[in-house]
């Protein structure tokens, strides 16, 4: 190539090539360097203090002296994906439910029996005679201890949304968050009563159910305890629908319930004490039969962020079993006293 040609190529490069290089350089700058500086700016602005911060960490702190239970390592492994309900029967076996099945486990998690159910169970309860009631969002099923179906009703009134089931005596009680009533059925699956409707003369305020957390448990002497979650109250109804007693504990501190729909789950211990599980500030506590706060089973720091306590139960020894949505396993909390005594 002659010198002249080289010169001309150089001129061409200067006139046309350099602007192209400039354009490419600009693009590279815009894409990488400017983006980087924006991200850096974002990072520095992220570190700024939020003048409108909302901090409830103090409410999650619990005096360690109030915690009277200690978690047993390991817990009970649940051989189910996404368990949805749990209970412990009077024979000290665990029933845990998931999609299309209910498993019976011993207290170490060994599977004893499997029951096929169609759908996703929301709640399970076992009667003293071994009958098992399984409730679904819009259905209810009763099986006997030999796995024979007694009834399976899937058609209920419009807006039905079942959240919990309890068997007491010859009746099956189901809480209906959609219609805000406690439904009582007989062993044929027929509705015999709707309990808890507002009745000023009878002193019944009616159930306030802002979300689908509405629990019922068998009481003593053919009664049931139902949570009135909107007003943080536990109400005791007789088999014929009469309000016998109630107690409430509305307080934002550890001694009460706060927020919408608490307690989400309740449990009656043999000594008459209540175990309560809460959402939002996730914790498990114990109250006396008349509603005085007694102690903490599991403080909020025992649960990962976003944990939901699916269900709670207790065995004959008084240990509390918590079905944890994060681990999908059953966590076991033993009374501290027992442990000291064992030593």
């Amino acid at each position: 190539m002659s010198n002249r040609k080289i010169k001309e190529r150089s001129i061409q490069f200067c006139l046309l090539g350099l602007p192209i290089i400039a354009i490419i350089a600009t693009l590279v700058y815009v894409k990488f360097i400017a983006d980087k500086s924006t991200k850096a700016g974002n990072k520095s602005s992220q570190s700024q203090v939020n003048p409108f911060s909302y901090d409830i960490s103090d409410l999650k702190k619990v005096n360690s002296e109030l915690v009277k239970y200690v978690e047993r390592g390991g817990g009970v492994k649940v051989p189910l994906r996404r368990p949805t309900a749990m209970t412990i029967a009077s024979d000290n076996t665990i029933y845990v439910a998931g999609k299309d099945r209910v498993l019976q486990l011993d207290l170490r998690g060994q599977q004893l029996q499997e029951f096929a159910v169609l759908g996703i169970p929301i709640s399970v309860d076992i009667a003293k005679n071994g009958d098992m009631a399984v409730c679904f969002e819009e259905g209810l099923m009763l099986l006997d201890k030999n796995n024979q179906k007694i009834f399976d009703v899937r058609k209920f009134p419009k807006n039905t949304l079942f959240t919990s089931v309890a068997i007491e005596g010859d009746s099956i009680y189901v809480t209906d968050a959609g219609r805000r009533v406690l439904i009582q059925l007989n062993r044929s699956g027929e509705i015999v009563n709707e309990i808890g409707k507002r009745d000023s003369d009878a002193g019944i305020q009616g159930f306030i159910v802002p979300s689908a957390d509405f629990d019922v448990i068998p009481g003593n002497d053919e009664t049931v305890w139902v949570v009135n979650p909107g007003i943080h109250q536990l109400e005791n109804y007789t088999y014929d629908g009469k309000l016998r007693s109630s107690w409430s504990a509305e307080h934002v501190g550890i001694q009460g319930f706060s927020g919408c729909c608490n307690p989400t789950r309740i449990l009656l211990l043999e000594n008459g004490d209540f175990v309560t599980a809460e959402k939002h500030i996730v914790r498990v506590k114990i109250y006396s039969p008349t509603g005085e706060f007694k102690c903490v089973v599991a403080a909020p720091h025992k649960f990962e962020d976003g944990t939901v306590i699916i269900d709670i139960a207790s065995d004959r020894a008084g240990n509390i079993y918590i079905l944890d949505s994060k681990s999908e396993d059953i966590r076991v909390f033993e009374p501290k006293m027992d442990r000291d005594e064992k030593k």
Partner: protein
Amino acid sequence: MKKNDDKKAMDRREFIRTGVRYGCVSLLAAGGLYLTSSRKYGKDSQHKVWQLDPEKCIKCGKCATTCVLTPSAVKCVHVYAACGYCNLCGGYFQPGTKKLTTGGENQLCPTAAIKRTYIEDPYYEYSIDENLCIGCAKCVNGCSDFGNSSLVLQVRHDRCLNCNECNIAKSCPAQAFTRVPSSRPELI
């Protein structure tokens, strides 16, 4: 001599040909750049508006402080269908409030933009005065921590300037801001 002139003429043609070639490449690059930028900010911005995805929002308070408008175009919006109409409302009352009254010391909102109205025992309705709301998300935090998450932040399009480069979107740590069609401007 003639041979040299021909060579010169050929070189000139070659020069022009190469020039056109480079010109085309530059034109293509410029066209690509234009298309890229117009896809992001240009033509579509006529039909799209900024909106905040409540699912991604971490309620950091930046909507109140980084919007080019004062007060911010981001406001609290109440999704009534999800509300529990609670007496003890986590979005309305300060955590730890002893008395459930409308006293300023009990209210969580720094500008008292939430109105509490008695419906029937024990239900109360909560509505947002958008002229007072500054989009700080305190109530949204309270509602999600204690309630049904029925209070959410949304960009209000009667105020939003629909900036090409939204200042809040730029600083949002959760990247919760997105462009949505103006025909469906809300994400609730």
